[in-house]
């Protein structure tokens, strides 16, 4: 905002070049797309909330105009689809206007979810890479483990999550770790799939070269397979971090749904408080976007360090 303001002061030509710079940066495209989405969203808000609103008018026997309708559809307590500004207001209220230590603070819930997401993601990535290493290096593992890793992913996690948590509690694990393990369970898979492919992506000639050096397996791994797999690693990690967040949120349900964005979503949904649901959804999505962007940043840094061209 302040950028545009200062541009206005500095005259037309610099303003034009600034506009061009903005066009090349992310700010302008993102805001335009966001604006487009907001417009569509408001449209749907009116459209989806209208039937209910008309019902209200009818029950009250009130006269109403189109303007009333538009205004009222955007101000319902339990809208089918809340208007963007209602969601923003809710987010503002629960982040800025609420103490972060309060149970009503969205920041607190986001933090709780984030911590198990990160823990689960870290364990999941590590586990995924280790499994991929095993699969690429050991034929027995390739043949026997991979099919079962796949099968494991078809087990609906929500179904066994309570059992996992019960079992983990029984062996004395509680708190962050059980939730994180559900994130792990979901996030290691994209990493395995991506890294198996990545570790196998070096060209035959590159592997031959290492063979002529009689390089040991660890040497082939660290000097060839690992760098060659990095593009796959980052792509997998982007997917994994997003799924981790989903896992952490899902994992909050069977742990008693006491705190975290998942608990928040559930409670909102239980009481039909759509605005609260959407606020939590946005918080979760924003977290995901930030996490994915961070992985992307890591990707750019590493690619730049590795010569920066494919």
């Amino acid at each position: 905002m302040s950028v545009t303001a200062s541009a206005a002061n500095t005259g037309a030509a610099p303003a034009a070049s600034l506009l061009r710079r903005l066009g090349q940066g992310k700010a302008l495209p993102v805001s335009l797309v966001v604006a487009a989405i907001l417009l569509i969203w408001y449209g749907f808000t009116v459209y989806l909330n209208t039937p209910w609103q008309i019902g209200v008018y009818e029950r009250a026997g009130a006269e109403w105009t189109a303007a009333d309708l538009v205004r009222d559809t955007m101000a319902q307590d339990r809208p089918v689809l809340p208007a963007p500004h209602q969601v923003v207001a809710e987010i503002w209220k629960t982040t800025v206007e609420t103490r972060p230590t309060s149970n009503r603070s969205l920041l607190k819930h986001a933090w709780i979810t984030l911590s198990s997401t990160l823990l689960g993601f870290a364990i999941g990535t590590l586990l995924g890479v280790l499994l991929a290493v095993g699969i690429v290096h050991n034929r027995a593992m390739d043949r026997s483990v991979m099919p079962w890793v796949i099968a494991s992913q078809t087990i609906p996690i929500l179904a066994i999550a309570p059992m996992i948590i019960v079992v983990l509690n029984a062996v004395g694990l509680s708190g962050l770790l059980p939730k994180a393990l559900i994130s792990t369970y979901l996030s290691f898979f994209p990493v395995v799939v991506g890294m198996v492919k990545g570790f196998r992506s070096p060209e035959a000639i590159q592997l031959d070269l290492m063979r002529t050096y009689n390089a040991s397996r660890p040497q082939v791994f660290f000097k060839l397979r690992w760098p060659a797999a990095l593009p796959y690693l980052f792509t997998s990690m982007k997917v994994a971090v997003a799924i981790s967040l989903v896992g952490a949120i899902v994992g909050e349900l069977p742990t008693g749904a006491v705190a975290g964005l998942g608990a928040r979503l559930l409670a909102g949904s239980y009481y039909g408080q759509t605005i609260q649901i959407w606020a939590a959804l946005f918080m979760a999505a924003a977290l995901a976007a930030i996490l994915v962007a961070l992985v992307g940043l890591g990707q750019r840094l590493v690619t730049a360090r590795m010569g920066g061209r494919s």
Partner: protein
Amino acid sequence: MAQAPVVEARGLSLTFETNDGPVQALSNVDLTVGKGEFVSFIGPSGCGKTTFLRVVADLEQPTAGHVSVNGLSPEAARRARAYGYVFQAAGLFPWRTIEKNVALPLEIMGFSAAEQKERVARTLALVNLTGFERKYPWQLSGGMQQRASIARALAFDADLLLMDEPFGALDEIVRDHLNEQLLKLWARTDKTICFVTHSIPEAVYLSTKIVVMSPRPGRVTDIIESTLPKERPLDIRETPEFLEIAHRVREGLRAGMGDE
């Protein structure tokens, strides 16, 4: 025979299975390369020169026949790091700078950091790439990439060098320079060199023995022992003796092509 042969092939054959039928790349090849020899392989494109080097390097398994390297199986020789291999394509790792690419085998073989540095500098100088240490492969021209890959193979000083058209993408002057350097290195260190080339003068200038191959299935049609002295100034290439050998090689090639 005082000394065991460095490379010995007996009745060597190799057939590739492909989607539309088998391709016989080598057929019944017999060859002996003695210690300290400089053997050039020459033959039409696709006749199996690369395949032969790959079998010696234990990168391809023969379907019939037998090879030994330093009296060992190719695999044992590879494990003993008996040879340095220059591939036909440069095959540099895109994420490593030139100096790091050249240092790769040194890292793997556990040379000290100081030693690595010294050797990288020395071999890069040998192939005229000083000043490009910090560049990435895609920032080099085709010929420079090829030279970097030669430096990489020379860096660790193997006794046997397998070189697959190492100088193909180089201009005459650099090529002459590298030819000289290679000959010097060979004379000084008593290395054994197997060298694939398409240039008849190059083959004659460098070799003690020239192996002429014929295409599909790859067979050895002629083996020409050079009568040139070990000491070879560049202008030896104008001597009648040189031209005579070159002529023989050319004839051998033509004969091989003829019966296709």
